[in-house]
């Protein structure tokens, strides 16, 4: 009963990441800001659009919040080449499982699949050529709730009970999220879809203010962060036109 696509790939000679010597002690760059938090209807997951190489801005339209299937999303911080490859492997793995076994892979099974990829990528991560520190969020059909998990580069998974952040801009917004969630008008989990989206735009704008590796909103270029909403109905991407309207009415006047 073959249901493991990654195993199938490996049998054909596939290897994730670049073989490298572990433990050379190179700094692990995670130049980006990604975040996820629970709101009233599910989970909001968002990320900025900037890709950097050292102090160079390589690209300002990167999509770091990627739909893996109809009910799960992986937001990526770290080396894009490895992160995109992991998403491709997961995307095919989940589909392959569903199509061979005629049922969806459980949410727990999806978490383990990502953890396994991160573990196998440790040598590349430690050598500085392939570190990935993702956030994985999705709808758990068995427990009928949307959930958030974040990982370290070794593959350990942690549940973000209320929220999770990753990337170079995350120290800035982690404190803000704690403050808003604890002493704000209402906790993040009580926010409506619109309130949650405004919060995400403000958080990412704050991260861009203090972290040069995080891209902010560029209204002239009509460039907004990627924001996705995960509910029982599946994954939905918030359109730029709505982000533009929210930014102009609820965010821009404060910066």
């Amino acid at each position, binding site marked *: 009963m*073959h249901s493991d696509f990654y195993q*199938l790939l490996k049998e054909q000679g596939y290897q994730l990441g670049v073989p490298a010597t572990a433990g050379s002690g190179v700094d692990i760059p995670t130049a980006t800001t990604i975040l996820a938090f629970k709101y009233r209807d599910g989970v909001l997951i968002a990320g900025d659009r900037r890709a950097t190489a050292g102090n160079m801005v390589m690209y300002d339209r990167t999509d770091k919040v990627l739909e893996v*299937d*109809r009910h799960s999303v992986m937001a990526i911080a770290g080396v894009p080449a490895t992160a995109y490859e992991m998403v*491709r492997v997961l995307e*095919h793995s989940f*589909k*392959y499982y569903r*199509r061979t076994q005629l049922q969806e892979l459980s949410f727990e099974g999806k978490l383990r699949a990502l953890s396994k990829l991160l573990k196998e990528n440790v040598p590349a991560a430690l050598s500085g050529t392939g570190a990935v520190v993702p956030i994985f969020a999705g709808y758990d059909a068995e427990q009928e709730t949307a959930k958030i998990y974040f990982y370290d580069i070794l593959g350990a998974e942690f549940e973000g009970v209320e929220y999770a952040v990753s990337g170079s801009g995350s120290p800035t917004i982690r404190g803000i999220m704690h403050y808003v969630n604890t002493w704000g008008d209402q906790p993040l989990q009580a926010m409506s879809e619109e309130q949650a989206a405004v919060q995400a735009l403000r958080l990412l704008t704050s991260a861009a203010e203090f972290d040069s590796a995080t891209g902010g909103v560029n209204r002239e270029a009509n460039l907004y962060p990627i924001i996705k909403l995960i509910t029982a109905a*599946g994954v939905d991407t918030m359109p730029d036109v709505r982000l533009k309207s929210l930014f102009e009415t609820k965010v821009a006047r404060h910066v």
Partner: protein
Amino acid sequence: MYEEPYKWVEAVGNRRHYLDEQFKEGSPVVALAYDAGILLLTVSKGTPKLYEIYDRLALGGMGHPADLEKLRFSLLEMAHVEGFNRSPSDVTGSRMVKYGIAPILKQAFEEVFKAPFIVKLLMAELGAKAGKNSLLTINYDGTFEETSHCAVLAATQSVQETMLQFLRGQVPEGSSLDRTVAGALLAWAVGDRAQRRRETGQQDKHEKETTGSEDPAELAGYLRERVSDKTIECALLDRHERGSSKYRMLTVDELGRMLPPDLKAALS
């Protein structure tokens, strides 16, 4: 004993006869394009016979469940490895059939010392645009045919022709999903009834009914009798489905809402 060519030809002929016998009681499969995609329909008892293969590929089958499973897994492996190594748009029904599954079936059929696959397959591929769909039927000996509007699997070539004639007369290209579901279900009834008549030697008496002029009330009555303890399987490759995977099964409720009152009454 098969060293002599004519002995081998005789053995292959016997094998063809043996295989034809195996499909006599199989459930026909119907694939029909509609305005937003492709519908696959069959009636099954226990084991499903319609499957998702890839983002735009679906499979229907007749025959032995174990053989069907083996070939389904071969297709799934081929499609996913190819889609991962190249691109999902390189995974086409035509490539999967011509260079993947058809050679395997042909080889198994002609190796007379080994057991053949007892299967007939129907591969449906949703085109990027309406009118670009592909429907491939593959016989147990590896021969295949490609069409775009409708295709069927049934016990014999003659029953398949009967069903296709009915479909062409009843469901014009570009029909709505509702009309397509009803047409496909009636076509299944036409095929299943023709198979049963052939079984009981009544085919000559009813030969005139194979011209597309079937009585809908009579077919509804036949469906009531045949479908009561079985499941109507309906799968869609729907162009409007969100995300990359276009395959989904119709639920019992959806099916109930789509069928015309006379058929709904017959099946309730």
